[in-house]
């Protein structure tokens, strides 16, 4: 029974990690930057969702508001921060990592701002369906309607995003702008706005991750609750496992990571929660640096 429970816990948290990974992969695929600010953006979006929920008393509206808010935040970040970064590109030692430092700083900045606006106390977000486990033959699983909902939503999101990227013109523009901005421009694509769109989509995905992570826990939201940086790291590792270029890889990477962490916590030691991601990342980068679905030479960004 323990085995099944561990498996289910792993799968559920894995889907949320997958969402964070999707957000990271979205930005990577459309702008070739790793957005370390995704945890901050997700936090802010979740607060937007919370505000909507207190007024309108519906989780789904709250989720929609969070997604829209996330998209707006993502777009604003691209317009205000990333474009400036591109313009002032230096040739010094931090040239290649300036976006990393800037987005990390952004995450912390957003967190401080959220704390200033909403305070450090927990506020609650109530889940739309119950989080009590399903009962089969008298034994209660850890799997609940809520977790099922999360799983299904993430899969649907992933499907929609994949279709957008692979089958639509806008998806082609997104990919072309990421692989070769110059050729994209010479094809008449307004690369700047396409990049903004990529960030907006990533912001929306992060918002969903934030909302679900909050309700999947105990519904408590505070600037420090999305154990933000840990989730960011795990999302990043999930993206790396999947190969930074693949949306499907992001989800699978998230699931794999969720399972690995769940099993480590259950069967090795629960205290390793914080260090396990690091060890797993090192191992993954050692064995297969381009991830499960990535192309070669992905190690050097």
């Amino acid at each position, binding site marked *: 029974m323990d085995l099944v429970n561990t498996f289910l816990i792993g799968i559920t948290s894995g889907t949320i990690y997958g969402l964070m990974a999707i957000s990271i992969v979205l930005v990577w695929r459309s702008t070739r930057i790793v957005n370390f600010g995704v945890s901050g953006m997700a936090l802010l979006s979740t607060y937007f969702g919370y505000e909507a929920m207190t007024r309108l008393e519906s989780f789904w509206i709250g989720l929609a508001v969070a997604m829209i808010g996330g998209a707006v935040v993502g777009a604003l970040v691209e317009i205000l921060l990333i474009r400036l970064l591109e313009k002032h590109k230096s040739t010094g030692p931090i040239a290649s990592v300036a976006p990393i430092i800037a987005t990390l700083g952004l995450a912390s900045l957003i967190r401080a701002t959220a704390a200033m606006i909403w305070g450090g106390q927990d506020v609650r977000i109530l889940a739309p369906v119950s989080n009590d486990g399903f009962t089969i033959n008298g034994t209660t699983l850890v799997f609940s309607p809520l977790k099922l909902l999360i799983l299904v939503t993430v899969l649907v999101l992933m499907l929609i995003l994949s279709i957008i990227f692979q089958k639509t013109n806008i998806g082609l*523009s997104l990919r072309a702008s990421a692989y070769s901005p110059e050729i994209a421009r010479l094809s*008449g694509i307004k690369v700047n706005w396409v990049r903004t769109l990529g960030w907006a989509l990533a912001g929306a995905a992060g918002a969903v991750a934030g909302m679900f992570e909050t309700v999947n826990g105990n519904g408590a939201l505070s600037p420090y609750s999305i154990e933000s940086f840990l989730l960011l790291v795990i999302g990043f590792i999930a993206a790396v496992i999947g190969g930074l270029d693949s949306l499907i890889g992001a989800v699978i990477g998230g699931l794999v990571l969720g399972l690995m962490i769940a099993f480590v916590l259950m069967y090795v030691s629960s205290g390793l929660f914080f260090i396990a991601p690091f060890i797993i990342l090192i191992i993954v980068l050692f064995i297969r640096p381009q991830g499960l679905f990535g192309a070669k030479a992905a190690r050097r960004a």
Partner: protein
Amino acid sequence: MSLNVSNLTVHHGAICAISQVSIAVPTGKLAAIIGSNGAGKTTLLRTISGLKHPTEGSMMWKGEKIVGIKPEALVRRGISHVSEGKSVIPELTVRENLELGAIWRRNSKESKESIDQVVSIFPRLGERIKQRADTLSGGERQMLAIGRAIMAKPQLLLLDEPSLGLAPLVVEQIFQTIRDLTTSMNLTVLLVEQNAMGALKIADLGIVLNLGKVVAVNHAQTLIDDPAVRAAYLGY
């Protein structure tokens, strides 16, 4: 004159790449731009297509000023630029690369028709339509790049060293195709080439650049017959 460049000066940082260059190309004609390395040929094309800003001078296309206009906007005015070397996206398929060319039109029917047209010009692309562009040979990639440029239904085609790195037989084919396209689609073409002879043979007009300045402008055949040009660029 559909393309009119006057007194164009372009800098790379502190270095002057092009100085007071003036060229005029009539509609429907193919102008070959030749010159040795560093003469400023690539810079000239990149400035016309909007990738680079000139320090001074003016450029007119179909009677309208095009200085300071972004490349993506110029595509909509009929200017297509096939840049040197890296002009296909290796990670995308042949079809996707072609679709890119027409993407700004947002007309999928037209796009499909254009792809059929390109495939009829370059049958090899048709065979490989579903393959990723990085599986193509050098010649096929060049065809793909030109094909993509044509998808945009351009009126002005800027080609930067299409023969670079290609086998002589393939080069001949490409040049011939460029000539045929110029005539059949009534294109105005600027063809920058190191392969001076090959370029001049298919061109109407020849322009010789040296160290950022125009040193000769004439009918292509006249330049081929000119002993000075022959000695400097045609190897005999």
